[in-house]
């Protein structure tokens, strides 16, 4: 039988692109529960009509002129690539060969 809590943790890990084997999930599950229980106090506050704060400034829609300019960074960025192939970043095949 699947433990729904472990199942939820595994689903969350999949969304977060983290591997979580059964042992890790079992070890993490009680910590996760304890942290969420500690945070549950948030639900007790009546926030009806309170607007959300998304950022700490009132700046909105900050833009700069859309003018192309060289970054001068291409070579330095490619140098940091785990698998550089000339002027490209190499990754495993993205289409086919996968479920």
């Amino acid at each position, binding site marked *: 039988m699947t433990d729904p809590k472990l199942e939820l943790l595994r689903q969350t890990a999949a969304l977060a692109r*983290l591997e979580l084997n059964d042992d890790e999930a079992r070890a993490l599950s009680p910590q996760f529960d304890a942290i969420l229980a500690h945070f*549950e106090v948030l639900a007790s506050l009546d926030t009806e009509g309170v607007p959300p704060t998304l950022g700490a400034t009132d700046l909105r829609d900050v833009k700069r002129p859309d003018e192309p300019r060289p970054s001068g960074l291409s070579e330095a960025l490619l140098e940091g690539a785990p698998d550089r192939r000339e002027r490209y970043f190499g990754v495993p095949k993205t289409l086919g060969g996968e479920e």
Partner: protein
Amino acid sequence: MTNPPFDLTACALAEAVRSGELGALETTDAYLARIEAHDGALHAFHSVDADGARKRARELDDARARGEAHGALFGVPIALKDNMCLAGQEASCGSRILAGYRAPYTATFVQRLLDAGAVPLGMTSMDEFAMGSSGENSAHEVSRNPWDPTRTAGGSSSGSAVAVAADLAPIALGSDTGGSVRQPASFCGVYGLKPTYGRVSRYGLIAFGSSLDQVSPFAHDVRDLERVLQVISGHDERDSTSLPIEPFEPERPAELQSLVGLRIGVAKPYFDAGADPRVREVCEARLEVLRSYGAELVEIDLPHTAYAIPTYYVVATAEASSNLGRYDGSLYGARTGGDGSLQSMFAATRDAGFGEEVKRRILLGTYVLSAGYKDAWYNQALKVRTLIRRDFEAAFEAVDLIAGPTSPTPPFALGERAGDAIAMYNSDLCTVPASLAGLPALSVPAGFTADASRLPIGLQLIGPALSEGRLLRVAAALAAAPDAPPTHALDASAGGAA
């Protein structure tokens, strides 16, 4: 007894190098030698760029010989946190996933330091991706508190705080998301200033919680903090959260020790919520000094303080889960193969690259943002964040600034809270509210516990947005008090002058 350059403030050091009294190379070499002597025990630095620092110092000496000794930090060595970009230098963020990663460009705030003549010595130890309050979440080395090496230096900017407290650098930068500069400043007995959100560009600071992160200086001296903030602040078009305002200008009151007319709110919930009696005693003594200078002390309530820790950890982990999505082995950092498919490479890379606390926070953040849970957790936290902001707005109707402890406890022992995530999160109780509200906050060295342990305690000053000048002015008044505590850990613990 004098011991240049270590007993000079950064401002005095810049003046001494500009005038030729001290050489830039001589100064840099002195700090490098001190790092060599002490850092094996303290682990303030993750990497030291001795060659780069000497090369830069020589260039400054040459510039001076040509009569071009300009710059507010001319010849002043500085330590940078390991999540800051200086082109060509490693920025590992305390993580295996970025071990060996070299920054392709220089952060705006680092470039401004270079333009002012500063000499970067190296990158300092930190909790992985700035997630932690003790430095113990580093994948590399764990900093030690120079006042008592069995204790934590605080975190996440552990190494930068230690570097300043132990005089391995006269000034340092950290980043403060929920207290990551103020708390280690408190634990290490030095000053740490988190500026108003938007005051300092974050272009080139590796992101953790983007609505909270702020580049923040450490120093021994209030004037040095002012100087660094002057240099690194001001608008930057490369950071969309950078406020469109001029660089910071310090306040210069006619009388340093007169605070007549200033109303200071004493943050009752920061004292009530489990503050160690030793912390309370030291902070209250500093408040009495402020009262003796003419400030009026008023107790204030900040009613939503009890919700600040959950609010902060929901918001910060949600933002972190998004920001850390980019570490998947494709474009930079470490890659672990997996079974040959793209998805398995992502998962294997992240599994091997991230430490336990980072994984825990990514999972929490992913959970509070996931379909079915987002309203109850993330959206609710954003609304409570508004209530916390409003607490401060209401308080600042009645007072000019707010004071309380920086940390509920003195520095705790290494290992003491390492296995207990909730106890570690609760260490941030007094620092996260100002972060959520985007307000400037300063940890001032307040004194030492009266018991035999003699551990440093910090007093936190919080002001309205863009009131750094006021906070620093009050800190300068405290620093001028006859019983202001020493801030140089190694010399003081060795019984006075070095």
